[in-house]
């Protein structure tokens, strides 16, 4: 009891946290006083040893990790629970959404998905000029950043070229805010080159948006569609992800004696334990927590059947390099054809494992494979299937090296290209790179431009100037800054050619 008192005391009196941030960390500590969902001995051991990781989601899953409400429900029918009538014009529609967001839970306590905004708002825009739209979106954007300051909060737009998408891109480049994060869904048959160019020009201005390969994602989901949330997780709309657990491929490789041992014994063994961990967390959420009695379910914003289980992996680079060493091969992951080939083989084996393993409660009865972007406490292990920080080849070679992985990771593959500042004089180069990568089969395209203040740390956005300030103990309004500062200190992330750290949750107080 002494130790926990001390920790709670520390949180309460921390000079860098706001009262809300303190309340959140206190609640996490309280949750973790409860026993962990039931696990068998082997799974517990693998979790404790760090071969498996639960991303510090907490001991008692009482809400899904990512919730993607179908906001068209509240915009067309209103909400009885929230006492809202269906909106009649754009002001009312935006107001409804602003209210709705405060009722959408997630792992961070803030909404990770704020909707496919152009599709949601277009029906309310008739008769508005571009300038009127711009003004309204600008106020909306300012509200989002100031009241829900979490970089995992994510808006989607596209694939059609339309006035709302254009206004959002214009405002986003102008304000350069951390929140919300933004994805443009690109479809070569629907999106114009002009809107893609506007999106890639925005990347040069503020390292946003992320560009999703719409036809490729669409094929992995159904008619109700998908959304991109947090740092590049593709999930069913009107559902989401119940949980995300991940397998540390580096640790699996460390426990293997050869490539054959890795592929035929250790990967299937630890891969199976990862399913057990995931299932145990799913059972708690679905069978004990009573989450699905929420008004969100009753009013049809979400559907209990549409929550997947994300099966994350990370440390591919280290795993491949360790396995290369075992065969006395010097070629490194990301640079050598043979090493890359081994990586593709591992991804294929994982996809196959996920395809054939039933998962109770999960959407379509299966988990979804995810190349996980990492968290701030990861040390000497590279996110997902990425090439280690600081050793990335040129962007074209980089894309080619990772391309064959992309089709295996249906719930997202977080990769970030870092581009030299010189690209600012030649936006066409970024456009071609993006369009070409997607045409070649990249599931998603994300880039940072060196020298931008707004950069991705593992996948979420931070301002370098905020990190600087936080490190001087002044605190930050933005939740992800603490995470970014931690990540920057522990993961060499700012070594990444232009700096990047990946990823989402700020898991616990440290």
């Amino acid at each position, binding site marked *: 009891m002494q130790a926990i008192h001390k920790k709670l005391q520390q949180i309460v009196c921390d000079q860098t946290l706001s009262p809300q941030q303190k309340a959140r960390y206190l609640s996490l500590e309280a949750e973790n006083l409860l026993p962990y969902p039931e696990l068998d001995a082997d799974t517990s051991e693998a979790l404790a040893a760090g071969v498996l990781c639960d991303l510090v989601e907490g001991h008692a899953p009482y809400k899904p990790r990512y919730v993607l409400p179908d906001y068209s429900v509240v915009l067309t029918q209103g909400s009885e629970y929230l006492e809202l009538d269906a909106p009649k014009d754009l002001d009312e529609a935006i107001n409804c959404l602003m209210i709705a967001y405060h009722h959408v839970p997630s792992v961070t306590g803030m909404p990770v998905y704020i909707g496919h905004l152009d599709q949601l708002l277009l029906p309310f825009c008739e008769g508005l000029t571009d300038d009127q739209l711009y003004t309204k979106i600008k106020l909306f954007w300012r509200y989002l950043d100031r009241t829900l300051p979490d970089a995992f909060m994510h808006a989607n737009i596209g694939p059609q070229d339309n006035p709302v998408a254009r206004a959002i891109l214009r405002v986003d480049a102008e304000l350069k805010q951390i929140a919300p994060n933004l994805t443009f869904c690109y479809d070569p048959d629907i999106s114009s080159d002009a809107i893609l160019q506007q999106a890639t020009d925005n990347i040069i201005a503020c390292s946003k948006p992320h560009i999703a390969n719409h036809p490729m994602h669409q094929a992995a989901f159904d008619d109700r569609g998908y959304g991109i949330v947090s740092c590049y997780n593709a999930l069913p709309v009107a559902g989401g992800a119940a949980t995300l657990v991940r397998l540390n491929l580096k640790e699996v490789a460390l426990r293997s004696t050869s490539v054959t041992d890795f592929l035929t014994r250790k990967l299937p063994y630890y891969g199976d334990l990862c399913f057990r961990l995931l299932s145990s967390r799913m059972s708690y959420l679905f069978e004990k927590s009573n989450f699905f009695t929420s008004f969100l379910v009753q009013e049809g914003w979400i559907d209990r059947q549409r929550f997947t289980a994300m099966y994350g992996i990370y440390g591919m680079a280290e795993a491949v390099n360790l396995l290369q060493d075992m065969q006395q091969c010097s070629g490194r992951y990301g640079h050598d054809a043979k090493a890359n080939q081994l990586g593709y083989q591992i991804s294929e084996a994982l996809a196959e494992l996920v395809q054939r393993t039933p998962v109770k409660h999960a959407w379509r009865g299966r988990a979804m494979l995810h190349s996980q972007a990492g968290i701030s406490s990861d040390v000497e292990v590279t996110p997902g299937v990425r090439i280690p920080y600081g050793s990335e080849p040129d962007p*074209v*070679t980089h894309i080619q090296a990772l391309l064959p992985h992309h089709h295996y990771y249906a719930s997202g593959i977080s990769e970030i290209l870092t581009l030299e500042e010189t*690209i600012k*004089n*030649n936006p066409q180069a970024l456009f071609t790179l993006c369009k070409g990568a997607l045409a070649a089969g990249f599931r998603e395209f994300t880039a940072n431009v060196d020298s931008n203040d707004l950069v991705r740390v593992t996948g979420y956005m931070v301002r370098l100037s905020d990190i600087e300030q936080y490190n001087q103990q002044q605190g930050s309004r933005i939740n992800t800054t603490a995470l970014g500062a931690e990540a920057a200190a522990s993961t060499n992330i700012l070594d990444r050619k232009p700096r990047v750290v990946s990823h989402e949750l700020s898991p616990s107080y440290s």
Partner: protein
Amino acid sequence: MNSAQATVSKILNYSCVDGPGNRLVVFLQGCNFNCSSCHNPHTIGICNHCGDCVPACPHKALTVLEGKVSFDPQQCDQCDACLRACSINANPMVQTMSVEAVLARLTEHHLMLDGITLSGGEATLQAHFIGQLFKAIKADARLRHLSCFIDSNGQLGSSAWQRLLPVTDGVLLDIKALDADLHQTLTGRSNQRVLQSLRLLHQADKLHELRYLVIPGFTDRPSEVHALVELVQSLGTATQVRLNAFQHHGVIGPAREWPTASKNDIEIIAGQLRQQGIERVITPAVYI
């Protein structure tokens, strides 16, 4: 089968500074100028296989085979120790590449490219290869959309340009100095042919960009800037002019003592050019 071969010092799959969009850049070895300000001096010389660089390589990537230096890219760590060991500005890592090999590389990456630029050294010393390569690109249905550019110092004679231009989409031409004596001092050559090339390329509508390296104390003199303005005005004020800033990166010899060009130095000249009605002046995105 196309037998043309090139001596290549380096090939990049990605460049956003060698013409419009993203370009594959092939740096050809050898140059007919000898600029003190060169930031790629090891592309100037042609290897005579003296072997001096072999013991300098810490990764055993270089060996002498039958009197010739041989390079093993698998072992190379790109530390550039060999370049520093060479007294004639040559490069033991140079590779011979055929037209087919370059085409294969382009085919692999064509979705992510806007074009190809042949640079150097001085690319046009291997004009025959360039002509064959560009012709082959334009004959290939998958590669035809790629624009074919040359980055040149302008020393090539007009008849050779005439043979190249039908398959060339654009040229990035360097003007080292407008004053004949200054040009001689900076490059070891007169600028007479450079200016001829400039006019010829302009008339053929193949001059994509005129590049001017600002070296404080040399090419930023009022008389030089004035001459540059007049030259561009004579070509047309829509001519694209890129001002590059002299930096020490890569430079060897006495030019390392010369002052570098700051953002302010460049902005002053850019301002003068714009004031004289020159519409498209590009300045560096970064100063390093």
